């Protein structure tokens, strides 16, 4: 296609390919990708000003798509993003002024390039070193083996300690309190460098958020992309008013980059934090080499070196794109092959305060996580009233996880255990907690943490009591709106744990006979209610199709009592039921079936939440 503004003839497919390539990298690393597209367009005939203007427009579209995806993944911290934008905007202006001053004294070219090389090379080398250190620790078999990413650094700890009001909380980034000035300062410095170097600054901001602010890698990526939308939009507008944007070329590239960004963002689900940092470090190290080559091309007057520099960065981008795309494809294929029934990986939260029953919970939770291929997070809640050696808890939990070959991310919270666990569990599909199974008088009257959590739960909750081993499951299918979820979960668990399963249907007494019990057997109830027999047969058929040995039993009576009786009779050591409780004050007053079972059953109980 012929582009009249830049007066260039270029293939639309080539533009699509460049867009795809940079989209994958942008979605994966949280960068705009200016250091790739601008030289690429320049190599293919765009004059430099048009290459920059068109690239900025492409970056804007690409960032919108990538941010949209990352927002869905929960990776965009809007609060942090807005604060950073303020600091960045001021920094860019100051950076530009410094460049203008250097231009006046005729030193802009060499100074900017040298700082660019130092920055790219330094950041890349440091991140590579950090990754190498992490790998060494992992190979040494320390407890960190269970942690897939190390969040924070000495620098971020120092930044968090700055006690300059106002202080803000960034719950999305898991930062409890940080001085607003620290965020503005980091934004300012990254903005200054971006303005000074004349780049978008994604490659500076992303690591700055990780190492200086202690933001998790994936959130740093998403938040950086969110910022890039604004910075690139301003840049695109300014270049367009100068007539330096080839809108059609930008629009075609955005189509390619949009698809690429989806794959890049998706890849962050399969390639974890430290590995992303490793790939990022490699990419920017090669970018540094490419800038060195450009510098040499100017100082040694060898123009061909500049072209080779462009080819080098394009080849690196191409190879990295291929690697990321293949990793994503591999991840999706493997996931589908192993867990065809589970469309997306389950997220399991293993909460512990460090006691023995909590370790039992971790053991059972880890077995389930392994079976589901779930993402696991280990939550250690440190109650300020109690002396909990977090490192010790982490080590013992790590041993259990390592033994079962399960990797987990680690998070530590401070405060009331029940409250903190409830808060954290919102983001997960299953919460696993431990409970000792025996009750003191106070607990009997007031309820313990486990009961409190179940009665206020935000997600399906498994309370593990006396033992981590399960030999038989009892699933209660009383509540119609939970029946499907309970049946599905019970079959999945029976399959993973390879144990028999019984479904129990308790008919409340008044339904059968309003005055007294008829003492009907399960068979008699089925005869009395043919539709219930059909439903039972359906459930057994479903379980059989999954290779699970299952039976269905009917009982009449008060559900709370009948469930506990049946559990005892068949020797079940895991009870599964739906969340039947009222919420709020009413819930506190009248309690719930699930709360009652958790309180009185001495075996593990899984309460399936309504969102399941």
């Amino acid at each position, binding site marked *: *296609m*012929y*582009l*009249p*503004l830049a007066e260039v003839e270029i293939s639309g497919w080539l533009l699509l390919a460049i867009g795809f390539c940079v989209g994958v990298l942008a979605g994966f690393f949280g960068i705009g990708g200016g250091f790739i597209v601008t030289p690429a367009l320049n190599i293919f005939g765009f004059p430099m000003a048009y290459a920059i203007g068109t690239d900025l*427009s*492409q970056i*804007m*579209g690409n960032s*919108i*798509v990538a941010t*949209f*995806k990352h927002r*869905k*993944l*929960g*990776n965009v911290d809007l609060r942090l993003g807005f604060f950073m934008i303020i600091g960045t905007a001021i920094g860019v202006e100051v950076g530009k002024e410094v460049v203008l001053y250097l231009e006046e004294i005729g030193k802009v070219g060499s100074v900017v390039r040298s700082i660019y090389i130092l920055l790219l090379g330094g950041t890349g080398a440091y991140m590579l070193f950090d990754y190498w250190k992490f790998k060494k620790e992992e190979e040494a078999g320390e407890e960190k083996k269970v942690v897939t*990413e190390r*969040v924070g650094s000495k620098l971020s700890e120092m930044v968090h300690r700055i006690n300059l009001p106002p202080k803000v909380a960034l719950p*999305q*980034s*898991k930062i409890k309190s940080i001085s607003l000035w620290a965020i503005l300062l980091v934004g300012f410095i990254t903005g200054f460098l971006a303005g000074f170097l004349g780049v978008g600054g994604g490659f500076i901001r992303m690591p700055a958020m990780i190492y200086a602010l202690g933001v*998790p890698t*994936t*959130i740093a990526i998403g938040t950086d992309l969110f910022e890039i939308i604004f910075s690139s*939009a301003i840049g*695109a*507008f*300014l270049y*367009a*008013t*100068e*007539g330096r*944007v080839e*809108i*059609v070329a*930008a*629009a075609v590239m*955005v*189509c390619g980059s*949009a*698809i690429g960004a*989806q794959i890049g*963002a*998706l890849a*962050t*689900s399969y390639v974890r934090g430290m590995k992303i940092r490793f790939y990022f470090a490699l990419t920017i190290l090669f970018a540094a080499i490419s800038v060195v080559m450009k510098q040499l091309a100017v100082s040694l007057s060898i123009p061909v070196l500049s072209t080779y520099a462009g080819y080098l960065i394009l080849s690196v981008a191409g190879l990295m794109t291929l690697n990321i795309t293949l990793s994503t494809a591999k991840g*999706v294929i493997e996931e589908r092959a192993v867990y065809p029934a589970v*469309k*997306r*990986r389950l*997220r399991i*939260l293993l909460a512990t305060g460090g006691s023995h029953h909590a370790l039992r919970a971790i053991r059972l939770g880890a077995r389930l996580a392994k079976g589901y291929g779930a*993402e696991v*997070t280990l939550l250690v809640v440190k109650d300020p009233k109690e002396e909990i050696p977090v490192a010790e808890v982490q080590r013992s939990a790590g041993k259990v996880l390592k033994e079962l070959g399960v990797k987990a*991310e*680690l*998070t530590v919270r401070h405060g009331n255990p029940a409250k903190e666990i409830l808060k954290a569990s919102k*983001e*997960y599909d299953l919460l696993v907690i431990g409970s000792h199974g025996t009750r003191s008088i106070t607990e009997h009257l007031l309820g313990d943490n486990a009961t409190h959590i179940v009665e206020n739960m935000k997600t399906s909750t498994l309370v593990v009591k006396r033992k981590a081993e399960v030999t038989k499951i009892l699933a209660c299918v009383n509540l119609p709106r939970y029946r499907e979820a309970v049946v599905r979960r019970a079959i999945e668990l029976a399959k993973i744990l390879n144990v028999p399963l019984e479904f129990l249907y308790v008919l409340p007494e008044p339904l059968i006979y309003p005055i007294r019990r008829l003492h009907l057997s399960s068979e008699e109830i089925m005869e009395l209610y043919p539709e219930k027999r059909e439903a039972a047969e359906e459930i057994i058929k479903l379980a059989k199709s999954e290779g699970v040995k299952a039976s269905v039993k009917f009982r009449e009576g008060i559900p709370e009592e009948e469930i506990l009786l049946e559990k005892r009779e068949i020797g079940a050591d895991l009870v599964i039921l739906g969340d039947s409780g009222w919420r709020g004050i009413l819930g506190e007053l009248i309690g719930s079936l699930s709360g009652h079972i958790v309180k009185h059953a001495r075996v593990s109980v899984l309460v399936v939440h309504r969102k399941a």
Partner: protein
Amino acid sequence: MIGGFLETLAEISSENPTLYGLIVVAIILVEGLLLALFLELVFRILGIEVKEIPHH
């Protein structure tokens, strides 16, 4: 048709640069949003759902 469109854009860019700037930003913004929604739908149809990642 595309040629005519490109010519018109080239004319706008020289006659009214601010308008051209706004058109560029608006086109990219709308394109980005539509593509994001469209691809979300495509990925959902393909059954490739993204996972929300716990960040710690």
